[in-house]
Structures are given as structure tokens and as C-alpha cells.
């Protein structure tokens, strides 16, 4: 097994852990953080490919991660703001109770 494969497996596992959190946790903040973990997994991929992949020299992969970190921060801010907005009405942040809209 090459280091690249190992990196990719780590990122796959991280992706799945994040997904599990998003699917299983009641607390909306943890759902959001699970999704953040999935984004991190993708970032690990970029770096692994930047380090071992076919495109040596250009810093594309690294630059992409830089941007993705910034975007993830923006996303987290908006997401937490929305969670707080829902909390004001619902008085808790259990995702499964946010079911006013359905059908």
C-alpha cells in the first residue's frame, strides 16, 4: 500500500464518520459539524493528490484547500446563525423536531 492509498483511505474514513454524525445525531450543531468533517476529508484528498498525484509543481491542490477552508468557515457561520434562528422558535436544537414543513 502506497502512502497515497493510505491517505485516501483515511479521508474516506473521515468522510464516513462525518456522514454518520450528520445522519445519526439529534443535535443540529453536531449534524453541521459532521458535514464539516466531510469537507475536511475532501481537503485531505486534495493535499494527498497534491503531494503524490500526477500534477507536481503547480500548487493547485493546496490553493483549492485554502479556498475550501475559507468557504467552510463562511458556511459554518451561516449554518450556526440559522440554527440559532430555529432555536428561537423551537426552544431546542433537536433536528428531528424541526418538522413544521412536511407533506
Amino acid at each position, binding site marked *: 500500500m502506497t502512502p497515497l492509498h493510505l491517505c485516501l483511505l483515511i479521508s474516506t474514513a473521515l468522510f464516513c464518520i462525518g*456522514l454518520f454524525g450528520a445522519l445519526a445525531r439529534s443535535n443540529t450543531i453536531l449534524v453541521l459539524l459532521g458535514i464539516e468533517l466531510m469537507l475536511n476529508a475532501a481537503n485531505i484528498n486534495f493535499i494527498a493528490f497534491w503531494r503524490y498525484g500526477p500534477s507536481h509543481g503547480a500548487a493547485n491542490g493546496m490553493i483549492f484547500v485554502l479556498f475550501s477552508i475559507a468557504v467552510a468557515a463562511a458556511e459554518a457561520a451561516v449554518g450556526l446563525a440559522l440554527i440559532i434562528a430555529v432555536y428561537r422558535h423551537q426552544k431546542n436544537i433537536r433536528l*428531528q423536531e424541526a*418538522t*413544521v*414543513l*412536511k*407533506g
Partner: protein
Amino acid sequence: MTLPVQLLWLIPALPLLVAGIGALTRHRGVALAAIFAMAGSFALSCLALAGALQDPSVHATYNFAWFDLGHGALRLGFLLDPLTALMTTMVTFVGTLIFIFSLGYMKEDKNFSRFFCFLSLFAAAMLGLLVANSLLLLFVCWELVGLASYLLIGFWFHKPSAAAAAKKAFITTRIGDLGFLLGLLWLADSTGSLLFYDGGQGVLEATALASLSGQTLACGLALSTAIGLLIFCGAVGKSGQFPLHVWLPDAMEGPTPVSALIHAATMVAAGVFLVARVYPLMSADALLAAVPVHALTVVAFIGAITALMGALIACAQNDIKRILAFSTVSQLGYMMLALGVGSSTAAIFHLLTHAFFKALLFLGAGSVIHAAHHEQDIRQLGGLRTKMKVTFATFAIGMMALSGVPFLFSGFWSKEAILHAAHEWDVSHLPLYAGLCAVVLTAFYMTRLVAETFFGKPRSHGAEHAHENSAVMTAPLVILAVCAVLLGFLGTPYWPWLQKTLDPHYEATHGGLGLMLLSIGLVGAGLGLGWALYGRKLRTTAAARDPLDTAAPAVMAVLADRLGFDELYAATVGRLNSATAAFADFLDRYVIGGLVTFLAQLGIFSGGVNRQVDEANLNGGFDAVSESVRGSGLFYSRKQTGETHGYLRVVAVAFVLLALVLALGGVR
């Protein structure tokens, strides 16, 4: 003076203009404007007819590019040939009379101007359909006709039955239109054009026809047969042919002038016109011996079934308009039969004569209904012969034309031409026999209708106080009655002017005398039977039992139930629907995720398409089956629990499934 083909668009444009004006204003003058517009269109149509008659074999076209589809421009156009000119003349003439009649009939309606706006829209769409030289333009107008008829049938929207009937009519015909659209797309795909005539490049010209009939599909059908049959689906829907006839009788919920316009002159005839228009395409496979079925054979048998079935059901109906509606179904079957056995001229001949006498009958029925305070049940009527002399006389002429009373009435000659063509057909004589049976039945039920309505004693309050209507309503009746007599002489075997105009290669064949005598005998038998059962011993009370019902109650019950078609649809489609729903539920219970249920719903989808066809009764059944399909929609909606975890899970599951699909089956 003639109307050049470049200006043909003026004919539909006039009513369209009035429809546009009518949409903006509520002034009652819209009605007059509509009548003048129709009269103007009639005048223009006469000019066009004069031009077309100068050389009947020419298809004058005017084509123009409309928009760019990526691979060459899409072109539309207008077409002027005797078929177009005769049809526009007939539609505008009958239309004008119906408009005038409506002036009296709808006088007290509070949406008077809107009614004329819709009527004008309908007429404009219908005329556009007739002058189109492009299957696409024809289809556009075809859909507009459907939309306008939806608006008109549902005009008295405060009656829930009218709203339901309008919806049913629109959707049922639309099912046929799906086939039409598909055929149209396929045709465009395989020929690259949708123009009928285009200087040798059109789809009805030799090059395209040869290539279409030269290709054979996997099932052995010629390509032209497949496309022709798909287009025929549209005609089946619009012309109320078996098995999509169920909408037509219910459409009687609209105001009576609408019934006259839709059921006599125009919309239902559109299907016949369509088949006649694409006749070269439909008959392109005629020379191929090896194909399993010819397109026209299907047309002939559908027509024969419809003709017989419509006449049978008409015998057991009691609503005056419903009898006429089933009679229309039956007569349209005749026309299709004529087309199928290879005589498009006979079909158009019957189409023209039928338009006049059926419009006459519907307007006469409208006159009766108007006078009898909206009483439509013939058992409740009676004795109107003396109270409404003009209506009675004209109605009787219409009835004799429809029954085919010999020599003096137009219906006789056109029906004769059809029977003659069916006799000559060498594939099968079954359609001929069906047609002959329908002749007896037609004479029979029309005699019953007239005897019950006009003879005997009034059997209800409405009939008691009936009196003749104003001249604005009777004058159109008289004019139509005159036409119902005279029109037949345009196409007698001794002077087949109409046939020669429509088909320059037409040769009059003589020697059908035996058949003519037979059919005269059958008409006499029908009339006599009807009079023996209903005329000799007149009904005295509305509740008295029908003599036929006494004789064969089971048969009559089935017929009165319209042969149980509606129940059949309800039962089969309903079963299918609940079975697939149960199956889907099973899957849902044991398999994770909502994704799998899509597949199970495939069956429900087939039910969903047929859903509109079926109904048990006008209100109850249609809604009930609609409900059952709404139920399958609810099944989906239940998946939408509102729980975000579920949504996220579906995303992940769908990802896994799609990845597996691509990895296991799709990577090339």
C-alpha cells in the same frame, strides 16, 4: 376575385381578434363583433373556395421560417386546397349560424360577452387548424381547440358536473394527443420536416412517403404505419372514437350552442379532418403486402366498432342531448370507417352533410330545452309538435337526414357513399355489416326521440308551458334545414361534383343499386320499428316503462349503462392501482430508503395515465378514481416526513445506489 394563399391567415385572424377584444372588455357588443367576424371569415372562405376550385388538384402553399432548431429552421405554412376551402367554408357558415342562435339562447346569461369571447377563440383555433400546412401548426391549433372547448364545456362552472365534464374532456382528448405529439416528433425526426406540402420536400409528398414506407421497424410495421397510427391516436381522442369516446356524452353539460359547435361542425370533425389531411401518409403502406397490419385497416375497424356501439348505446339514453351525442359518436365512426376503407371523399362528404344536420339537431334540441325551461329528459317532454311548429318541422328534417331517408335528404347520399365504399373494400366485409346494423339503429333511435319529444301529451310542467322561440333562434334552424336537404345533391352518384373536387382521379362507380335498395329497406325497417314501439302507443306519463325495457330489461340496463365501459375502466385501473400500491408498500416496509419505491410506482404511473379515461358516473366516478391516483401521490408525500435526517439519509443512499449502478453496469 379569389383569396390568395398568402392571405389565408386572415380567416382565423378575424375571430381571434374578437376573442382578444372580448378578453379585455365585458361589453355586450362583443357578441355582434363575433358574428360579424365569423361572417367575414365566411366571406373570405368563399373567396378561398372559389380560388381552390379553379384547379382542384393544386395544393397551394405559403411557407415561412419560424425559428431555428439548431439543425435547420423550423418552418410553418398555410395550405389551400379544396379540402381546406370546403372545411373552412362549412365551419364559418355553420359557426355564423350557431353564433346567431347563441344570441338568443344565452341572452340572459350574466357572462354573455365572455361566452362569445370563448366561442371566437374556439372558432379561431379551429380555422387555424384547417388552414395549417404544418403538422406542428396544426397541433398547436389542435391544443388550442382543446383548451377552448375546456373553457366552453365548463362555461356553466357553477354546476359541478360541468366543471368535471370539462376536465374530463380536456384530459381524455389530451391522452390521444400524447400519441399525436409522439407521432409528430417521430415524423419530424425521420423526415426532418413537418410541412405537408413543400415543393416535393413535404411529408405528404412522394419522396418522404417512399422513405417512410420503405423503413421497417422491429415489429414488422412500416415506419409510416407506426407514425400514422400514432397520429390517429389524436384523432381517436378528439373525434370520440372507441375507446376514448367516454368524454363526448359528458361534454353535453355545456350550453347547447357549444354542443352544436363542438359536436356537430368542428371539434369532433377535426379528427376526421386530420386523418383526411394526412391520408397520403396513412395509406402509404397500402402497397406493402408483407406488413402485419395496414394503418387504414385499424382505422376502418375502430370506425366500425364506434359506429355500431354509439348507435346501440343511443337507443337506451333518455337525455335528448345525450342521444344526439352518442349519435355523433356513431356518425363519426362512419366517417372513420369510410376513411379506413379507402374513400376519403365519402368521409368528407359525410362530414359536411353531418355538420349541417347535426348542428340543426343540436340547435333544435337547444330550442326545445330553452322553451321547456331546461327540461332535457325526453320522457318528461312530449306534445311539442303543436306548440313549436318551426322547431318541429326543422327537427324532423334533421332527423330524416340523420336516419338516411332516401333521395331528398343529404344524409342519405353521404351514408350511401360510405356503405358503397365499405362494400368495395376487399379486406373484410365486417365493417359493412356493422354499418348496416347501425343504419337500422339510427333510424330507430331517432324515431324514438322524435316520437317521445314531439308527439303525445306534455308530461311535465316545462313541456306544458313551452312555446316557440324568437326568430333569432328559429331562423338559423330554417337555414340549416334547407342546407340539410340541398347539400346531398353535391355528391350523388349521378353527379359526383364533390368527389371530383376533392379527388381529381375519382371515377364514379355504378352498380351499387342492390346495396342502395337494401339500405333503403333497412332505414324503413328502423323507422317502422321505432314508430311501432313508440309512436303507435304513445307514452302517457313520464314514469311509464319503456317498451324495450319491458321486453329485454337486462340488455337495456347494460346499454343504458353505456355498455359498462366506464365501470370497466374503473375496475381494471383501480385494481392495478391498489395492487401496485400494496406492492410498493411491501417494498417500503422491508427495504431501506424511499428510492426503491420509485420503481414500484412505475405501475401506478400506468394507472395514472389511464386514470383520466375511466369514470363510473360523471361526478362520483371520475373524482373517485382521481382520488385513488392522488392516493399514490400521497404515498410519495408520506415520504416527505419533514425530518431532515431522513432527507440526508436519502441523499447518501441514492449516492450509493447510483455509484453501484455506474460501477456494475455502466462503465464503458
